[in-house]
């Protein structure tokens, strides 16, 4: 669904507050406004970390090269910080930079996406899919209209063609499907409560760890109605 009404893109900070309100697990991290702050945060959560420039004008972080993964120590962090800020300025000289997110690196067995959009007829719709090409190229996703039940959440996950990858493919451990169900139900609850204000949301990617070890949101984007 396209966004036809006036909307605003929520800041990362605001998104995190909303996710916390619904108890949706998020990768640990904090926002730095200088390399010094970034070092402190990194020491706090422990290396390796990821760095991301937060700017409402930069939607696709990979395209703009404002994302650095697997930073192992302080010196790597300092140079990475500098590099991604320069890349951001180069990508869009007018970009408003709200800070640099320093985030823990989470190793998982799969990446999934969970989202919300608004349908003209049905109101909020919840989407589930595997991350990366599965969503972008193959459009291998499932949808439901909230509120959803545990059964609906299970069926949403089983319905996608890539389900096999979550079940443990070629010796890979089985992904924590219960944790995905848990997030889907929380997102359903959120979509119902925020039905008047939220236009779209992507939790993308969500890193899913092996069975029993949880799933964590690594990036989030939310669009709200302008007047909310």
């Amino acid at each position: 669904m396209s966004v036809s009404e006036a909307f605003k893109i929520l800041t990362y900070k605001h998104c995190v507050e909303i996710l916390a309100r619904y108890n949706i697990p998020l990768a640990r991290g904090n926002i730095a406004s200088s390399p010094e702050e970034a070092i402190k945060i990194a020491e706090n959560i422990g290396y390796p970390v990821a760095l991301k420039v937060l700017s409402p004008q930069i939607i696709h972080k990979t395209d703009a090269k404002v994302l650095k993964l697997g930073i192992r120590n302080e010196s790597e962090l300092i140079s990475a910080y500098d590099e991604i800020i320069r890349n951001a300025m180069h990508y869009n000289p007018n970009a408003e930079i709200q800070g640099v997110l320093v985030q823990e690196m989470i190793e998982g067995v799969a990446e999934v996406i969970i989202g919300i959009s608004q349908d003209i007829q049905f109101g909020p719709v919840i989407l589930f899919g595997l991350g990366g090409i599965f969503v972008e190229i193959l459009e291998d996703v499932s949808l439901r209209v909230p509120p959803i039940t545990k059964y609906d959440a299970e069926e949403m996950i089983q319905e996608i063609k890539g389900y096999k990858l979550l079940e443990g493919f070629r010796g890979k451990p089985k992904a924590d499907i219960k944790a995905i169900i848990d997030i889907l139900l929380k997102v359903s609850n959120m979509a119902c409560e925020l039905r008047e204000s939220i236009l779209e949301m992507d939790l993308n990617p969500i890193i899913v760890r092996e069975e029993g070890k949880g799933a964590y949101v690594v990036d989030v984007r939310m669009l709200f109605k302008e007047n909310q």
Partner: protein
Amino acid sequence: MNEGKNGRNLDPLFRPKSIAIIGASETGLYQAGILRNLLRYGYSGKIFPINPRREIVQGLKSYRKILDVEDDVDLAVIVIPRGFVLDILDQCEKKGVKAVVIITAGFGEADDYGKYLQKKIEEFAKKTGIIICGPNTAGFANIRENIPVIARLDPPPIPGNVAFVSQSGALMMALYGVFADKSVGLSFIASTGNQADLEISECMKYFVEDENTKVIAAFVEGFSKISNFMETADLALMKGKPIIILKVGRTKVGAAAALTHTGSLTGSDKVYDAVFKQKGIIRVDDVDELVDTAKVFSLFIDRIPEGDGIAVITQSGGLGSLTADLCGAYGLNLPELSGRTLERLLSLDELLTFGSLRNPADVRGEGTRAHMLPKVLEPFIDDEKYSYIVILLARPAIGEEDIETARTIVELSKNTTKPILVVWVGRKMPDSGGNLDSQPYRILEKNGVPVFHSPGACLKVLRHLISYVKFRKKRIGG
């Protein structure tokens, strides 16, 4: 009218005690046809033709205007040109009419004037609370109670438990014929036309609540009262009344630039698809599938098996293989033969099994002849592993010998709770003349044995039954 639109009672429309036909006449498809059908099928309420130019219409006293009728009028049917409709509606309100069917076309689907008129009708319905079906509808028929507010109803209806509702009037009429050809018993048919007021999901809800209706089939272009549709779907699932929908508009509408992946991946039809899955609605892709699915649900609604095992008995190895392939593609379960069932079948020397038999069971021509069929089917009927029995025949469905085959299958079907379905590949029309109804194909069709032209058509329907039962069991608990 304090009741919300979701909860209003549609009895005055579908079960009127009296009907006025405004514009009734001796000729004209609707002007004459509706009155003729009400008379022909013995509508038990009062009928008032309204036509200022006639004293008598089709043998009934005609009135100048509806306000001249002394008795109460529940339902008014309007078959006059669009320019007069608003004025007639005002008269209907004064008369205390509770429901109106506007057959007349040329409203929202037509020019600006038509759109203006439709807007006025919408306002009228909101203001007065009078139920309005249409405009641009072909009407409806309450078949079990002989209330055909419809211009054509041929052949005479078979009363049954399937209600069919369509926005398109032409399609309602056409599919009525298909249902009749396939001997599907109906409770209601209805068309909602331009839906100035009455919406298709309200009809569906009425049918779900109707005690004689067990299966609801619908041709849908879109729902405008979504909350009512969702409620109806929940109610239907609870009551165990399957809703089968053929919905148009699968084509993806080009979405404008979306800012999230989720935004670009959720077109409206995909959402419909998702909602149907979520609510246990059976979505079909074509008209034959709609009618066949409705038919099979209708026949077995009180005894749909809980299990999903299918036994396939085939006359032809090739047809058996095709069926096995399709079962694989549709995710259907063909349990292998074993134990006592296998022993019993292998002991039938006539089958020339040479010691092995699988599922699909190739019993050759001999095993599918009338005198052998009971012996071949009984082991499957007795085996709990099998919930459905599909017989594959590959020969002309013509002639005395296969009349006997058909009768045998009908008998077997009557004596078991397990659904028996037949796929008959081959000629079905006799050389010339002759009574079609005496042909094997028709004998099956008319006696509660669903018969299909191809394995795919049969398996699609079975897949719908099996997934409906599973879905309902999970949600409601059987």
